[in-house]
């Protein structure tokens, strides 16, 4: 039996390009492969994705598997699982990494069960244990109250990684990788689902995940009008507004603004947390921020343990004064 070797990264595409998460995973995967002294491979699955193979190589892949088939245009469990089963059978990797995305979180567990191995979803960090050479999979558990490190005895060791947890390499266009075409070999009648429509969420201004400044509001904001005040700060700083779950559930902020374990993951340079306590759930979605600033009336609130700077007091008094001072400073 052939030996499992190397690291394989499932690359996703977005608007005809390699998705940012995929560049991140190739960067992280490169390091794991180097630590193992083995190859890094990428796999592109989709329809019309073959042209992206050089980009995957530029981001660090030694080999690129390409499965290009019209039946793979939309992600569907029943089409992607057999295709990935086939690619894994051919590539025989030790480690398989995907993004913690709508695709990865659906595909990884199902594929792991099919291949009789285990997966860890939503990892913050992956490393190779120097002794055992096993993949150490670190992920938040108990809603972010704790972290766990898992290993897998079987191959491939599968993990999904959260966005922004790994850093991409600077693309090197001179780096060439071997391209291996794999026939999807799908039977359309075995696909038991059909994607009827895809509806993108409407975003005004800068996308939350891409913003360098995020202003997050919590339950204490209390109303949609309150969130409008946070919007003003975000506008001044060319950032975006996020929220904890209660404001989204109450309709003060759109559902897409939710940051946390079950919402979006952000890692801005500056996260201004207003009237939010800093629950583990929420912090799971923003703990990668470079600097957190807390505005909260409760000096004991957990957010002050996470923040670099803080003001204790009523946000209704603090936010307007902060906004005015910002305008003054930014005008200079």
């Amino acid at each position: 039996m052939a030996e499992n070797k190397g690291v394989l990264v499932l690359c996703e595409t977005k608007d005809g390009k390699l998705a940012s998460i995929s560049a991140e995973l190739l960067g992280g995967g490169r390091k794991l492969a180097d630590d193992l002294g083995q190859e890094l491979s990428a796999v592109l699955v989709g329809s019309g994705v073959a042209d992206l193979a050089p980009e995957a190589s530029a981001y660090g892949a030694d080999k690129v598997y390409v499965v290009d088939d019209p039946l793979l245009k939309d992600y569907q469990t029943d089409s992607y699982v057999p295709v990935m089963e086939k690619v894994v059978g051919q590539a025989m990797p030790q480690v398989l990494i995907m993004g913690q995305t709508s695709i990865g979180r659906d595909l990884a567990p199902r594929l792991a069960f099919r291949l009789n191995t285990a997966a860890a979803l939503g990892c913050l960090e992956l490393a190779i244990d120097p002794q055992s050479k096993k993949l150490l999979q670190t992920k938040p558990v108990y809603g972010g109250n704790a972290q766990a490190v898992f290993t897998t005895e079987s191959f491939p060791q599968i993990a999904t990684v959260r966005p922004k947890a790994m850093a991409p390499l600077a693309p090197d266009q001179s780096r060439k990788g071997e391209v291996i075409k794999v026939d999807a070999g799908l039977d359309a009648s075995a696909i038991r689902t059909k994607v009827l429509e895809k509806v993108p969420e409407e975003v005004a201004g800068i996308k939350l995940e891409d913003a360098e400044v995020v202003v997050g509001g919590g339950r204490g904001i209390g109303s949609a009008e309150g969130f409008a005040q946070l919007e003003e700060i975000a506008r001044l700083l060319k950032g975006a507004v996020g929220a904890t779950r209660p404001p989204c559930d109450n309709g003060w902020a759109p559902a897409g603004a939710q940051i946390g374990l079950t919402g979006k993951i952000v890692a801005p340079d500056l996260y201004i947390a207003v009237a939010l306590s800093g629950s583990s759930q929420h912090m799971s979605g923003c703990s990668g921020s470079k600097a957190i600033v807390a505005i909260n009336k409760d000096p004991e609130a957990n957010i002050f343990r996470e923040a670099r700077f803080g003001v204790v007091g009523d946000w209704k008094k603090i936010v307007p004064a902060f906004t005015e001072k910002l305008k003054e400073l930014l005008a200079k």
Partner: protein
Amino acid sequence: MNMIVCIKQVIDPEAPPASFKIDPSGNKVVPPAGVSPVVDPYAEYAVEAALKVKDASGGKVTALSLGSNQLRDIVKKPLAMGADELILLEDEAFDESDSWSTAYALAMAIKKIGEYDIIFCGREASDWNAGQVGSGLAEILGLPSVTLAEKIDIADGKAKVQRKTDEGYEVVEISLPCLITASNEIGEPRYPTIKGIMGAKKKEPVVWKPADIGVDAAQIGAAGRRAKLQKLFQPVREGKCEIIEGEGPEEAAANLAVKLREVKAL
């Protein structure tokens, strides 16, 4: 419509963060004293999803829970919410299950139940946040699945599922029988009514032991794990927050803006 909803009893995730403690053995969490366990909130969304389908299309909802020391008053909650039956897979042999051993035992129980159109699970559970049992169960049972459902409509023997995606949502048509995991967008789980609570009090759950569902002892609980837990720890909080003061909140706010400018955070 015959529906099965997988639930479980967990440590209350809403318990104060300060009460969260890890056992010195370093591989499990100590249940906080004086805080009652709850039905996993993610699973409650799955119960709600099933009850919404029942409201619209009729049918029977069976809740299925795996664990040990399941407090009857807690795990009966789906019955109080409107489920028709409760089956408990209860034995210490199920302790320390991972996604594999959980999905395997649930699959064996579901095979014993026999008839079903839709199986519901939460998107993940609030304890280990693994997010795999639903998909794993579908794989073992050979069912099509849709994860992260926000809305479900049944028509012509198929389900139309609005699935949450990173970009927004997509609408997926899926043949029955199938497995669906529910996301919180499905809607707040309904409160049990007084009538529901009274009904649940009178109803005794069916209890199945490992032998009742014909499981292989090597595949359940800790023995059946595929994911080995090496370490469980609480991330260290830096706790070096600089509190910006001022004469009153307005001045403190202005000082904060100045400070952020000074450290080039703006």
